[in-house]
């Protein structure tokens, strides 16, 4: 098994090295940013009424501005990492072997194509999962460094853009690319189609969760205060009997409100931040399920197809 793993790394060394270097650099830069923001407590620097930064922060204002810019850019880049890593590592795994004819050699040597498939896919999927999890944690820390007082494990801030979901996104996209590669047998078309299908799947998981679960799980927040920890899904007007109506329903009841404005309190329909971990885990499990199905589909194609 060790020999097979070593050889799989050597066969895919360019992609693995590229992802490992990108992940390592990202972790190193992010660690420096987080350390600087934490040590200087720059994010707590306040401004006076004229917009001037407080005296203790004067000396580090320029550096701080750059560091926070890099922080925000890094969080943004982290959200595309699952696509880059998933496509780069997943697409060539089977497609390139079919395209270059190495699958023909391997499948003639191996009575079990499944063994070949597991040998090729296993180590790379592990690398993808570890790298994407590292980037997920990095995005989590970077987001936390910008909001030092926030409890991110109970907050929807940066939902879908940090933590576990980045890792499962990458695994789902990578597995999709593996399966499509087995069908198409050419790396470039595989990358393009996987980009489209992977993007649709990521969006679909979030959308299905929203439509099937989250919309029915909202609670009413009548505080009138916007709380960024919560996931704000909609707003309603609360009638004296406690019932909730949309603006259109309110207008239908009393058209004069279009001119006078609504007289009933506006309430938010939210998912409380305390449920973040639960919902993150639910979506992550859905994505892992899809990733598993894709890998099984890829295996079935490999078992049946011609080697090219």
């Amino acid at each position, binding site marked *: 098994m060790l020999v097979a793993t070593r050889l799989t790394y050597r066969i895919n060394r360019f992609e693995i090295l590229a992802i490992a270097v990108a992940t390592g650099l990202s972790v190193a830069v992010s660690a420096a940013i987080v350390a600087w923001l934490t040590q200087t407590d720059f994010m707590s620097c306040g401004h006076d009424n004229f917009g001037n930064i407080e005296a203790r922060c004067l000396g580090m204002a320029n550096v701080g501005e750059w560091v926070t810019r890099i922080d925000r850019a890094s969080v943004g880049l982290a959200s595309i990492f699952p696509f880059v890593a998933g496509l780069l590592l997943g697409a060539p795994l089977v497609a390139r072997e079919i395209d270059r004819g190495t699958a023909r050699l391997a499948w003639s*040597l191996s009575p079990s194509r499944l063994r070949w498939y597991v040998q090729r896919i296993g180590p790379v999927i592990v690398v993808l999962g570890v790298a994407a999890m590292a980037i997920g944690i990095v995005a989590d820390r970077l987001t936390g460094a910008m909001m030092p007082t926030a409890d991110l494990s109970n907050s929807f801030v940066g939902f879908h853009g940090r933590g576990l979901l980045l890792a499962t996104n990458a695994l789902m996209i990578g597995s999709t690319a593996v399966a499509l590669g087995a069908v198409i047998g050419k790396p470039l078309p595989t990358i393009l189609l996987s980009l489209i299908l992977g993007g649709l799947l990521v969006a679909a998981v979030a959308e299905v969760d929203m439509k099937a679960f989250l919309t029915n799980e909202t609670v009413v927040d009548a505080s009138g205060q916007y709380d960024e920890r919560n996931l704000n899904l909609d707003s309603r007007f609360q009638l004296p009997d406690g019932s909730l109506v949309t603006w259109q329903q309110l207008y239908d009841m009393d058209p004069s409100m279009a001119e006078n404005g609504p007289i009933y309190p506006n309430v938010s329909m939210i998912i409380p931040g305390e449920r973040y971990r639960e919902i993150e885990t639910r979506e992550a499990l859905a994505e892992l399920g899809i990733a598993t199905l894709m890998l099984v589909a890829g295996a079935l194609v490999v078992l049946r197809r011609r080697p090219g």
Partner: protein
Amino acid sequence: MVAALEAQGFGKRYRRRTWALRGVDLAVPEGSITALVGPNGSGKSTLIRSWIGFERPTEGSLLTGGIDPRRDRKGAVARVGYVPQSPSLYSGLTVTDHIALAGTLREGFDPDLAARYVERLSIPLSASAGELSGGEQAQVGLSLALGTRAPILLLDEPLASLDPLARREFLHVLVEAVRAEGHTALLSSHVITDIEQACDRLIVLGKGHTLLDLSIAEALAHHRVLEGPVDPAIAADRVVGAFPSPAGEPLTLIRVRSAEPIPPDGVAGERPATLEEVVIGHMAAGRVRRAAERAAAA
């Protein structure tokens, strides 16, 4: 005769219309080195790939070491060492890595045996596959196939990319391994002179059909060449096919009973056929037959 490879009424059709092979009946005897010869597009690769389970027959059946590759591909692959048409090694891996890789993929693979063959073919084990010539890659492919110790070797035009010396070395290693291990080998090739020295049996495919299936000795004994125009006195069923000599003179391959004495040279313009002439004569006949079939179909 026990057959290591069999085809019965085998046909393979691509994309619903084009038949690569049709109605192929043949048997490759166990322990033989059989040459599979035919023009481009005659279906040699399709047949070989079907025996290893890479292609599914459209009609008829195949047996690889007694196993139907359509029903038990694993069993068929386990009985076969395969050298594909174009070298397809992992460019980033060394020869040693390839041997190790084969060991991880196949139970019973003998890495020491494969390494010995590689060294005999003067290929450095530490060389990266990307640095090897096409011929050297084919030789590594042969060494890997021999390392499987599979009872049947399928070699799909491995000589095409080899220079004459490498070709000779390749065939020497192949023949020696087959004789030593009791393998059966099926070698598809265009290079007839080398086949004559290495193989003991000949199958000629043409336009999707089996044109000839004989031992090399029988093929030579049962054919002669007529130089010049065909004598009308020769029965039409004895004429196999007409083709030009390298100098452009008309030659005709005729079928004879092996017991017939060869007339003295110059008397009837008849002389023993070379193996190349036997093959070319049957290919020419296949072309004529195909043209007649097309005309009839039209």
